[in-house]
């Protein structure tokens, strides 16, 4: 197990490095082909060459390689890695530390992801298990129909309807019923409130999770049906164990392996959903910050945020791999 984890971590570090390098190559090429991003600093004003030179130096864009299309600019890359190693991710165009921006935006996105993952797991496991256990029953058909309906309903439609139609009457009702200062009014607040981050992120997170849960429900159902038909389940039943125990220890336990893998894989995908959700619900998070950075050609901020997101994704992959090994001994001893 120890060696397995070590190998996975080494692979992950290599992957992180590779992603950072590709990212560097792409931004370098963009600068080389697209012109000097330092100009973006001045907006509509036309700077003097001395001003441009000063800004270029400040953001590390003064290397002559940026004027030579095709040059991989290894010098600045190594320099940046050195800075990253010291925890310095640079600043945005306004001189604010990237680490500082991320530190304030990331927790909200993380809250959103926590809600999304919980929603996936709860809906997927409960509905998928019910559908598998009573296969062919009305509840099975109902759950499968629901999952198709969820698929047909895009997350932005869901969120817009929620925000424009549901939140105002619901939060009004909650205020009347539970009082101004209680928790429920915040749950249904139409926009994010930094004073109550958990309460105001919860419902948008659940809705985003709901939008992605259809695939989960079907995956859980399919993998559990696979287990129900398995010989080892028949063996467990032949021991005279009650059906509940058979389901928990031999069906759910065995079919959790593909489910955990899917959680990891969809986690990365959820970021695009986060951009939409954060935009609609005015949540100050990584998705919104990244969107603004791209809009304003803030190279330093884009690089910093994408690097951090890569690191987080790689970390999630490691966690999934370790969970996978913990769940399936055949992986551990490969």
């Amino acid at each position: 197990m120890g060696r397995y984890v070590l190998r996975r971590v080494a692979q992950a570090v290599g992957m992180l490095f590779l992603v950072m390098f590709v990212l560097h190559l792409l931004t370098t090429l963009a600068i080389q082909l697209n012109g000097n991003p330092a100009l973006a600093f001045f907006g509509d004003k036309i700077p003097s060459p001395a001003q441009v030179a000063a800004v270029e130096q400040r953001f590390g864009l003064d290397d002559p390689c940026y004027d030579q299309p095709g040059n991989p600019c290894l010098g600045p890359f190594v320099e940046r890695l050195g800075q990253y190693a010291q925890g310095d991710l640079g600043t945005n165009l306004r001189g604010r530390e990237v680490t500082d921006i991320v530190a304030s935006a990331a927790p909200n996105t993380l809250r959103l992801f926590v809600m999304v993952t919980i929603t996936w797991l709860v809906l997927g496991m409960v509905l998928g298990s019910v559908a598998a256990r009573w296969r062919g029953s009305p509840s099975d058909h109902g759950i499968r129909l629901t999952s198709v309906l969820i698929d047909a309903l895009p997350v932005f439609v869901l969120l817009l309807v929620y925000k424009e139609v549901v939140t105002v009457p619901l939060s009004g009702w909650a205020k009347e019923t539970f009082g101004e200062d209680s928790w429920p009014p915040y749950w249904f607040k139409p926009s994010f409130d930094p004073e109550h981050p958990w309460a105001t992120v919860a419902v948008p997170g659940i809705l985003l999770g709901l939008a992605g849960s259809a695939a989960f429900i079907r995956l859980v159902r399919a993998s559990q049906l696979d287990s129900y038909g398995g010989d080892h389940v028949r063996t467990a039943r032949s021991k005279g164990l009650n059906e509940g125990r058979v389901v928990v220890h031999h069906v759910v336990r065995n079919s959790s392996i593909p489910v955990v893998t899917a959680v990891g894989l969809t986690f990365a995908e959820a970021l695009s959903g986060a951009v939409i959700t954060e935009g609609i619900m005015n949540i100050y998070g990584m998705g919104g910050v990244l969107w603004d950075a791209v809009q304003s050609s803030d190279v330093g901020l884009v690089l910093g945020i994408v690097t951090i997101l890569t690191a987080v994704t790689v970390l999630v992959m490691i966690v999934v791999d370790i969970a996978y090994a913990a769940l399936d001994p055949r992986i551990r001893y490969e």
Partner: protein
Amino acid sequence: MSAATDRTQATPSGTPLLEVTDLAVEFRTPDGVVRAVDGLSYRVEAGRTLAIVGESGSGKSVSSLAVMGLLPDTARVTRGSVRLGGTDLLTLSRKEHRARCGDQVAMVFQDALAALNPVHTVGYQLTEALRARRGLSRGDARKRAVELLDLVKVPNAKARVKEYPHQFSGGMRQRVMIATALAMDPDVLIADEPTTALDVTVQAQVLRLLAEIQAERHMGLVLITHDLGVVAGVADDVTVMYAGRAVEQAPVVPVYTTPAHPYTRALLRSIPSAAGTGRLPVIPGRPPSPAAMPAGCPFHPRCDAVRDVCRTDVPPRATPAPGRMSACHFASDIMAGREPAPEAGVTASASGGSVPEPKGDPDD
């Protein structure tokens, strides 16, 4: 070998541990209802081994799943009884049925790699039922797991209980499967083709182990196999199944010396022997599909002694000798090694009626 002494000493007396009477099982399929088992009866006594022999699809595995209450949802028992210690298991709820079987009847499955759960340790699976149903503590369970592995002669049992099924070789895995079945100290053990997935030398070891354990614990053993060669060494009684029915039931020695059914006779001829030369005789044709059962005797299209009566009348369960059963119109003739005379059909079948015509095309 102990099983051999048992065979001569044991007498078929007393109440059987497990008695299956007139069992019939049907499957719902897209093509309609098919009958997989039709009127199977057998009894299992303490210290004796019953071999159920048949080709795949003959209903031998399905019948044992019915006994255990493990039939898939598409199947149901339509007739018969399975009596275990005075209770008809088929009258119980599925939950009670399985609980009773878990205590008294255990099953060894064919493919141990698939039949053991890949994500739990061998020790966990050995004692799962003991812990869940008899409340054994974790420590006691571990001790018991080691004992069970020792019992089936898995070397280094203490370390191996912590391992997973995929870390065992095929033969060792089958031993684990047997140990799992023995955990609850069952009265009857049903072994469904326990050696099919193993190579020949390992097969012999596993069979010997089963026979030893059975004799030691005075268990009733039901050995399901498609290999009559396997049966000779271990069984006391034999039930030969064909197309969901028992076609011959008898003690093991007479089955080999004087088979009373043409199917048994053909099976015996097709056992390869080391001394054999030339082509191995095979039974021509294929077993009938349960969805398209031939009229009359289900074996008649493949029978080398077929007469006209076989094509029209289902053979009765004849008793050609005490303690023997053969579902053949000409059981006595086959047992005596005679070819049935064309006119013998009238007297042997006891069905009366039409006078059979002279023998038709034997390849029919």
